[in-house]
């Protein structure tokens, strides 16, 4: 047992340990603190943000040397550090843009930040997991927090419904995962990713049971990242959950789930890529199209963003399904750019309110370009980026995906993917058209705080200026992917 609690092992898990301890302080603090609700809300948020910042600093100070600790349970390398940083930064930004919304919706309770921190803790564990058991622990910690968060708006029927739906379907997905993992364990006798990789190379791979197990595991992961046909929960949960939580849903868990998926596909199941490749291609094309067509007729911006997410994760999964280092690197680029754009879009959505009610109908943005040119312009830039117009970041994200597909001899898949993005461009452009060309019935009244403006402007700036630092980001992503794929 002594070797388990080795110093070096502890240092590797220090970010998670710090966040967990922070949460332990947070809970009694939340219970016993006094003061008015609004004051307490901002105080708690600040506390949570400091916790995340501290975690982030510890993470960065830890270095990114590739190591495995706790008897193969936990891993750390460049990918882990980068994905964790993305999660933490996105988490901090989402805190800052949801302040205003929370006071609007009276989500003052201190459980809100606590649960968000718990889910982030779960994600950190997921990202650094090197074993299905660790993965499952992180996944469940994350999911359970998210179920509750989805149902956070206690007086809203939609919110409770969203939480319940998410919970039931999530439980099924967890069942899939556990079933798959137990089969894997039955076949190989291990659940560790690295050991799995070696054991696959020493055994006959033509087993129906193995295929069965892999499909089970992939389906569960597909559910987490809302890939069709396991996407059904997404629009309903996005719409029902409080909008700040939707923003969280759309960005942070996706990063974590993709990080895990990369590790599973490229470490544990790399030897058997011939089994999962086709499955992933079919699923991702399906979700690109479901995402593209599903959004066409939506009138609610949150539902639209749900479909947009479905289609975007489709692209990431498509390039992962190549099982090449180019595919991996372009998916990391895509996730990064997607995170920035989506954060910006939600910063915008969270600021669109009228008479203390958040606007959800797309048509209510009409005439925004005249009343709030800054918001309209930044939102337009972000949407154009999501639609993939050059020279914005979204174009490069898609470009690298299609490039990797073409290099990987999957020209037809690339063509289909491009067609999907053409359809998707329609609904992004429709929003721009509404903002710029349609006459408004009544003027919007935006009372955003400055944080939202900063985040929105920052994201739009990143999206525009991507072209100038594209080289370094791409270089960086290539480095990361080289560390994973040999």
């Amino acid at each position, binding site marked *: 047992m002594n070797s388990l609690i080795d110093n070096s092992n502890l240092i590797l898990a220090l970010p998670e340990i710090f966040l967990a301890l922070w949460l332990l302080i947070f809970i009694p603090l939340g219970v016993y603190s006094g003061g008015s609700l609004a004051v307490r809300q901002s105080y708690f948020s600040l506390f949570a943000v400091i916790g995340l910042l501290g975690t982030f600093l510890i993470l960065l100070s830890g270095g990114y040397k590739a190591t495995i600790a706790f008897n193969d349970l936990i891993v750390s390398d460049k990918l882990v550090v980068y994905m964790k940083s993305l999660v933490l930064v996105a988490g901090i930004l989402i805190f800052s843009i949801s302040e205003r919304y929370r006071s609007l919706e009276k989500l003052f309770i201190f459980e809100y930040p606590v649960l968000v921190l718990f889910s982030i803790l779960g994600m950190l564990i997921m990202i650094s997991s090197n074993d299905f058991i660790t993965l499952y622990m992180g996944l469940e910690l994350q999911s359970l927090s998210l179920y509750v968060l989805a149902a956070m708006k206690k007086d809203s029927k939609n919110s409770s419904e969203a939480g319940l739906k998410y919970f039931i379907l999530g439980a099924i997905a967890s069942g899939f995962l556990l079933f798959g993992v137990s089969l894997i364990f039955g076949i190989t006798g291990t659940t560790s990713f690295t050991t799995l990789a070696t054991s696959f190379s020493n055994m006959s791979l033509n087993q129906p049971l193995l295929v069965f197990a892999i*499909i089970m595991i992939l389906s569960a992961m597909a559910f987490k990242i809302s890939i069709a046909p396991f996407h059904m929960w997404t629009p309903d949960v996005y719409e029902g959950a409080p909008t700040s939580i939707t923003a969280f849903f759309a960005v942070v868990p996706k990063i974590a789930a993709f990080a895990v998926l990369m590790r599973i596909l490229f470490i544990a199941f790399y030897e058997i890529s011939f089994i999962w490749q086709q499955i992933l291609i079919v699923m991702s094309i399906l979700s690109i199209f479901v995402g593209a067509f599903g959004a066409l007729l939506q009138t609610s911006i949150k539902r639209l963003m749900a479909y947009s997410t479905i289609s975007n994760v489709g692209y990431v999964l498509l390039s992962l399904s190549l099982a090449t280092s180019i595919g991996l690197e372009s998916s990391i680029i895509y996730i990064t750019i997607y995170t920035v754009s989506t954060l910006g879009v939600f910063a915008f959505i969270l600021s669109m309110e009228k008479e203390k009610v958040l606007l959800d109908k797309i048509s209510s943005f009409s005439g925004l370009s005249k009343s709030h040119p800054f918001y309209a312009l930044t939102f337009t830039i972000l949407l154009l980026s999501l639609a993939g117009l050059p020279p914005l970041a979204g174009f490069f994200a898609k470009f690298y995906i299609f490039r990797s597909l073409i290099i990987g001899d999957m020209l037809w898949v690339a063509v289909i993917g491009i067609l999907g993005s053409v359809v998707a461009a329609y609904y992004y452009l429709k929003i721009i058209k509404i903002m710029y060309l349609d006459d408004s019935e009544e003027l919007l009244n935006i009372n955003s705080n400055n944080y939202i403006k900063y985040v929105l402007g920052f994201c739009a700036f990143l999206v525009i200026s991507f072209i100038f630092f594209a080289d370094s980001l791409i270089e960086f992503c290539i480095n990361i992917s080289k560390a994973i794929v040999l």
Partner: protein
Amino acid sequence: MLKLLVFLPLLGALLSGIFPKFIGKKGAMYIPTILCGISFIFSIILLHNAILGESYVINLATWINSGYFQINWALKLDMLSSVMLFVVMLVSTLVHLYSIGYMDRDPHQARFFSYLSLFTFAMLMLVTSNNFIQLFFGWEGVGLCSYLLIGFWFKKQSANAAAIKAFLVNRVGDLGLILGICLIYFKFNSLDYNTVFESVTLIKDNSFSLLNIEIPIIELCCFLLFIGAMGKSAQIILHTWLADAMEGPTPVSALIHAATMVTAGVFLVARCSPIFEYAPYALGFVTIVGALTSIFAAYVAITQNDIKKIIAYSTCSQLGYMFFACGVSAYSAGMFHLMTHAFFKALLFLGAGSVIHALSDEQDIRKMGGLYKALPYTCVGMWIGSLALAGLPPFAGFFSKDIILEAAWASHTIIGGFAFYIGLLAALLTAFYSWKILFMVFHGKSRGDISSAHESPLTILIPLTILSIGAIFSGWLGKPMIDTHHDFWHGTILILDNHEALKNAHHAPIWVKISPIIVALIGIFIAWVLYIKRLNFTQFLCERFSFLYRCSLNKLWFDEVYEYLICQPLKKCGDILWKKGDIGVIDRFGPDGIVNVCRKIAMRIKSIQTGYVYHYAFAMFIGLIAIFSWQFLLLFGWV
């Protein structure tokens, strides 16, 4: 200096076109004018240098470089181009100056001056080109500016229609030109003037067979190039746009539709004289078309009543003279007439503009008369211009028209003789309609309200004065151009030894030399009888020869025939393609069809999203089972 000369007008165009606010309303007028003035001074110096024998090519940049095909942006200075530079810059500068006065009431001066300068630039590119592609660039550039300037008053429906007509008719000619250029490239493997002209002799006997008729390549080349020239220079068949182009502001008519752009065709033929010389049939065609145009346009001009239209048809007719001069290998006579014509025709147009300006945009000569008191300077200018146009000594037109007619006579061919007699008749008509204008506008009784008429401002009178001087002396000064003993053109114009019309012209009998003067005097006399002495006789003549009169008045129904034969079938064709082809097929199955399919798919996906959690769970299981089945079928090799 040549570079500056060419690019200063472009600078002017850019300045007043893009930064009108920055340089101000005055600046937008004066800056392009001053820049053109500087270019004009350069052009005098360059003309002087060229006469002394200087010639060179400045390569600016490579434009197209593809395999063996290389085209440069280049500026070529030689005798031919320097004469054109001088003419273009002189008229352009004067027109710029004139426009300052003429356009003073227009709100869009900046745009106007920008177009004028841009036109000047394009024209300079055309004349200084050293290859056919850059020539084509300039050719299209002037066409574009012509279009823009004819339609300058875009609120006038007729101006827009005229602009489009000019553009489309020119397209027909341009098609010929570009086919000619393609054929030249195909045969010569180069589009550089020097290379092409030097290798003409190598392929002059090449021919190809079409429907069992042997057609020499050179003939076809020249024929196609001349089609282009016909379009731009408004020769018969493609002449219909020129009269309508008078919808543009009058300075534009003076610059583009009298002095410079329409003469580009003549320039093209003169420039390509090394090719045309080997194509006797094409030259004959040029002569016939030129002669027919000169008589036809003069005939139409006598019954028109719009002052600008008369002058426009007169231009058409004079261009015909230039072409038949080229047709009998007297290219230098054609160029000579081009230069003198630029002076007196610009003078006539600007004079007409002055009259129109004074009468607040009245163009119908029936409503004028007796204006010589109100507009003395303009009247003198118009008289000089008309004298020059009619070819009376010692005015400019005498020298150039005389040599053309003599050359036609001296060519000793049937076509040449035909052109000579036609030309004489056209000269008679020319004198007649010129004095018809003078008598009806300036003399006799006033038939309209001319009480408010007033002499034009100085910016209008100065150009008139300069052009008047030119119209008097340019013929005399330009005589070296047609001197056969001393080659004025320094070899830029090639005339084969057996084509010696010009040489023989100097030995023409005396009756040939004086007949143009006599017919001109007869024309003036008839005009005097009809419009001053016996006004009722005019009416009688019109009724007596009503068929001839109506033919002339309706311009031989060219427009109507084109409308019926070409425009209407094309419109019908377009209508069918639009309604049946585009909307019915392409839209229905293309964009609209795709949109409908997308909408259907979207509806389907939306309807799957029922909101019931057991449906969702069911979808998950179905998806899972579908993937299982697919994979197992693959695994066991059942598919």
